[in-house]
């Protein structure tokens, strides 16, 4: 054996791997190979020395909470008023939501006046917030649809009346198998149960086959501008769409003031639908057919068909400098909503293809 044949075995020998006897014999007697071995050993020792200094500082402490990524929010203007056409919107959203494993939908408008009860509702590991106005009939209800304890849970909470410091809540709930789709009439056909609740207390609402809803609350003097996060700095893997407005050149082609969706995992995308414009999926990972778009604080800039587009939102969007925007013109919500088109934003799963690109989950197409 010569040096050329033995060199790769020098590396293996350095790692304590078994090498052929003939190679070991050559390395043992060859000055050049011995020098190479000593160099490898010296390089490794030096790297370990440096690493021991670099790993000295402890990593920052973190708190790990069960299901902290699954914060599910759905604030909605006017659950009570969900008749046609609003019911069509609810049907659409509910149908989509329950088919996604994790989702976050926020629908709220900031209100300047009114006394508001901010409920925190825990269902299994899921936790959502729900602001209910005592004076504004357009903001006195909220709803939730999501996966809880291997089931699909939907509930709607309506503020019925106020008596001093207490409020009367009307609650409808439905529990279905995890694989089932939940439509809004599944919920609205359920009987409404009524409870008196005093903010500061805890209310338990039994659910069939699930842990009870645990409802807590407190009074606020206003309805918060948006839910879930109050930190201006987006977290890792977070993608926030707070009141997204879409411009093509100087023309506003979509305005969703008050509606928001928040993504907190890389396998999720914000899904925004504007009537006549189609669907936009915005993700932190490259989507198949998606356009790489630049992020500037609360703006996303991209070009399509030679036209400049800008999403403008109400808060910093993400830590990433780039996101991917996938535009699908052809999506027809009529098939889901029963004919009434409304803009919406929600969160949908995306899946990775063998080629490393991501595509929206089938339910989102």
């Amino acid at each position, binding site marked *: 054996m010569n040096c050329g044949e033995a060199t790769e075995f020098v590396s293996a020998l350095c790692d304590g791997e078994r090498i052929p006897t003939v190679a070991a014999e050559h390395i043992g007697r060859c000055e050049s190979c011995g020098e190479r071995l000593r160099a490898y050993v010296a390089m490794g020792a030096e790297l*370990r*020395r440096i690493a021991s200094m670099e790993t000295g500082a*402890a*990593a920052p402490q973190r708190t*790990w909470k069960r299901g902290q990524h699954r914060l599910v929010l759905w604030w909605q203007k006017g659950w009570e008023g969900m008749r046609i056409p609003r019911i069509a919107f609810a049907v659409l959203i509910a149908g989509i939501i329950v088919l996604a494993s994790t989702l976050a939908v926020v629908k709220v408008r900031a209100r300047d006046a009114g006394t508001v009860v901010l409920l925190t509702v825990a269902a299994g590991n899921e936790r959502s917030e729900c602001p209910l106005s005592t004076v504004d009939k357009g903001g006195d209800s909220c709803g939730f649809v999501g996966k809880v304890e291997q089931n699909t849970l939907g509930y709607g909470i309506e503020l019925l009346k106020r008596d001093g410091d207490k409020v009367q809540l009307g609650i409808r709930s439905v529990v279905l198998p995890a694989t089932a789709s939940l439509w809004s009439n599944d919920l609205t056909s359920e009987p409404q149960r009524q409870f008196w609740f005093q903010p500061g207390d805890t209310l338990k609402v039994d659910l069939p086959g699930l842990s009870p809803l645990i409802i807590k609350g407190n009074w606020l003097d206003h309805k918060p501008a948006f839910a879930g996060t109050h930190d201006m700095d987006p977290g890792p893997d977070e993608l926030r769409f707070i009141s997204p407005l879409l411009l093509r050149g100087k023309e506003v082609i979509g305005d969703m003031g008050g509606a928001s969706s928040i993504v907190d995992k890389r396998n999720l995308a914000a899904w925004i639908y504007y009537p006549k414009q189609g669907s936009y999926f915005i993700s932190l990972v490259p989507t198949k057919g998606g356009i790489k778009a630049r992020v500037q604080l609360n703006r996303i800039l991209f070009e399509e068909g030679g036209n400049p587009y800008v999403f403008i939102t109400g808060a910093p969007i993400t830590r990433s400098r780039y996101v991917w925007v996938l535009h699908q013109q052809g999506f027809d919500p009529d098939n889901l909503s029963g004919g009434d088109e409304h803009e919406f934003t929600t969160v949908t799963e995306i899946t990775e293809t063998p080629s490393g690109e991501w595509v929206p989950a089938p339910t989102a197409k």
Partner: protein
Amino acid sequence: MDDAGMWKRISDQDAEAFEAFYREYASRVRAFLRHSVAGERAAEDVMQNTFTEIWHRPPGFDTQRGTLRAYLFGIARKQAAEWWRRQRPEEELALDDAASRTTETSSLVVDAFNRLGREHRTLLWLREVEGQSYKELATILDIPVGTVRSRLFAAREALRAIWHETPAMKGDR
């Protein structure tokens, strides 16, 4: 506790167990990432993403395929690759260069190390510093063990060549 026991607790969302896992490995993963992405802040972010990913998606580890430590560094490597993919291509070279300048060390070997390609850096760090076995490296990099051997050799030779081409380093030896 063995990997299977630890993983079961993590899969059960045992925060105490995961905190212990984080305490044991976080600074090591961060040190690894310092040489895999550009800058201290990026290394910190990617490290945090790595643990978040594991905490949120526990079904990902298969005890039959390797060790928990290899799985952890495999996720860290993928997160680092994802981080690079999100950078502007024309900036990559500059950022890569910046990575080499942002290390806090002045070691000649480490300076040479930071001039290696990212894949070589990854491989050498995991082998020399983390002591990952060839089998673990094969899992982390998703390549055959035989390829691990040849790539390690190539990485060492590349490092040695850079080391040798620097006059100061020759004198240093």
